[in-house]
């Protein structure tokens, strides 16, 4: 037990590790914020494309379906390797000379957009079809119906699962360390190599948890809020 505490939680080790790990964690924060913003927008676009009506839009729908199927099924670590190591090797003008952090954000965005698309789609489909018909019969166009009737309800419903996926994304920024981004996990690894102590990993865990706990509580709060409102509606 003493050995365990010493290896993982020695006060001196933690004190030394925290500034070093924080140094790397800033990169995680940067990646998660940019990726989350991009995912929110792109996933909505893909979800809308997937729900487009009519036969002429089939090719677009097919592309959207192929994209979500493919990237939901591919491990993030694999996508990160392909983008982070493969794209620079292509030696193409803009595509190949980005920083590793950019390739990391790109991988996170592409993989998580595929997940979040499904979340949005579930939200859109949960709005009763009668609402859509009612809106169309009032003379609203398809776009207007989506914008003013369907999406406001759909998005509100999916906020909790959406935040849940974002917690996943925040943690997965640590995977980007494999392509050589010096993030919290990399710094924790350097630290443990230097001092034969796992305090670095504990410090990294601490940072990730500190970031996700408020997020989780906020999600809980939203769920409760919705339940309260919907029950109130019933009464």
């Amino acid at each position, binding site marked *: 037990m003493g050995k365990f505490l010493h290896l993982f939680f020695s006060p001196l080790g933690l004190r030394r590790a925290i500034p070093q790990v924080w140094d790397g964690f800033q990169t995680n924060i940067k990646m998660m914020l940019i990726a989350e913003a991009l995912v929110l927008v792109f996933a909505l676009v893909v979800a809308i494309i997937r729900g487009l009506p009519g036969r002429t839009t089939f090719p677009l729908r097919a592309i959207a379906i192929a994209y979500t199927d493919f990237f939901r099924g591919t491990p993030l670590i694999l996508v990160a390797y392909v983008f982070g190591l493969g794209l*620079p*090797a292509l030696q193409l003008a803009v595509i190949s000379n980005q920083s590793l952090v950019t390739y990391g954000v790109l991988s996170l965005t592409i993989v998580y957009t595929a997940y979040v698309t499904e979340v949005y789609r579930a939200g859109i489909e949960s709005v009763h079809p009668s609402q859509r018909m009612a809106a169309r019969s009032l003379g609203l166009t398809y776009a207007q119906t989506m914008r003013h009737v369907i999406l406001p309800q759909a998005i509100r419903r999916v906020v909790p699962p959406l935040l849940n996926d974002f917690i996943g994304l925040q943690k997965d920024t640590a995977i980007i360390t494999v*392509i050589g981004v*010096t993030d919290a996990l990399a710094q924790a690894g350097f630290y443990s190599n230097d001092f034969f102590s796992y305090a670095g990993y504990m410090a990294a865990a601490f940072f990730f948890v500190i970031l996700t706990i408020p997020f989780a509580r906020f999600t809980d709060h939203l769920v409760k809020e919705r339940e309260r409102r919907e029950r109130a509606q019933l009464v």
Partner: protein
Amino acid sequence: MIKALTLALAVALATTTAAFAGSSASVPTKKPGVLTVGFDVPAPSFWNGRVTGTTIKNPTGFEAALSQAIAKKLGITKIVYKRAPFGTLFSPAPKSFDFAMEEATITAARSKVVSFSAPYFDANQGVLIRKGLAKPKSIAALKKLQLCAQSDTTGLAYIQHTIRPKKKALVYSASSTAAFDAVEAKKCDALILDVPIVAAQAKKKPHAYGGVAGQIVTHEFYGAIMDKGSKFKPHLDAAIKALKANGTVTRLVKKWLLNPIPPILK
């Protein structure tokens, strides 16, 4: 015609003056006047220090000291160290550094996509013996001993294909720790593994082992990595060769990696 001649003269004059102005002006570094060196994660004794984002400040160790000596030789006063992950090195992607030193062995396959400098370190195999064993003086003497190695290493291949010991060698997978423990526990007479690794271990626990008995030449060399066909290569090669000739490289090896330098076993 006269115009062309004067132009040619002007160019010739400019190049000669540049050549006389000192070496630094003519060294084609990525950023003029600055030497950019790539390192990966800290490698004890090769380079020690801390990575911040993508840069490394004031590293110490063999490769750090050697890169500083190279800069001095080339007349460059400013060195910037950048993190260049090992996994990204062997690709045709343009490099952000002038050269990277990452204990990379020069191989034909790697040379297809990158240029290597002249070797700066002989990555020989070291023989770490157990306590109480008389130091073997030749490779033939190793044949009679209980040898051990780590799986998938040059050391193991050397034991199996060249030494061919009488007793089957013990093979430890995954980490070198298990192999070191076997020598410490006297289950194994001699461990054959990269010489800087066994030397560092012998230094760390001097009373656990009988010391590094010698090194075996395997013709593996570490080289610095550059863009394929880099214009910087002739300058770097000249600097490394000069530093080898004047004994700087040996001095740095002694200071950071091997002290004393184990004898070569034949």
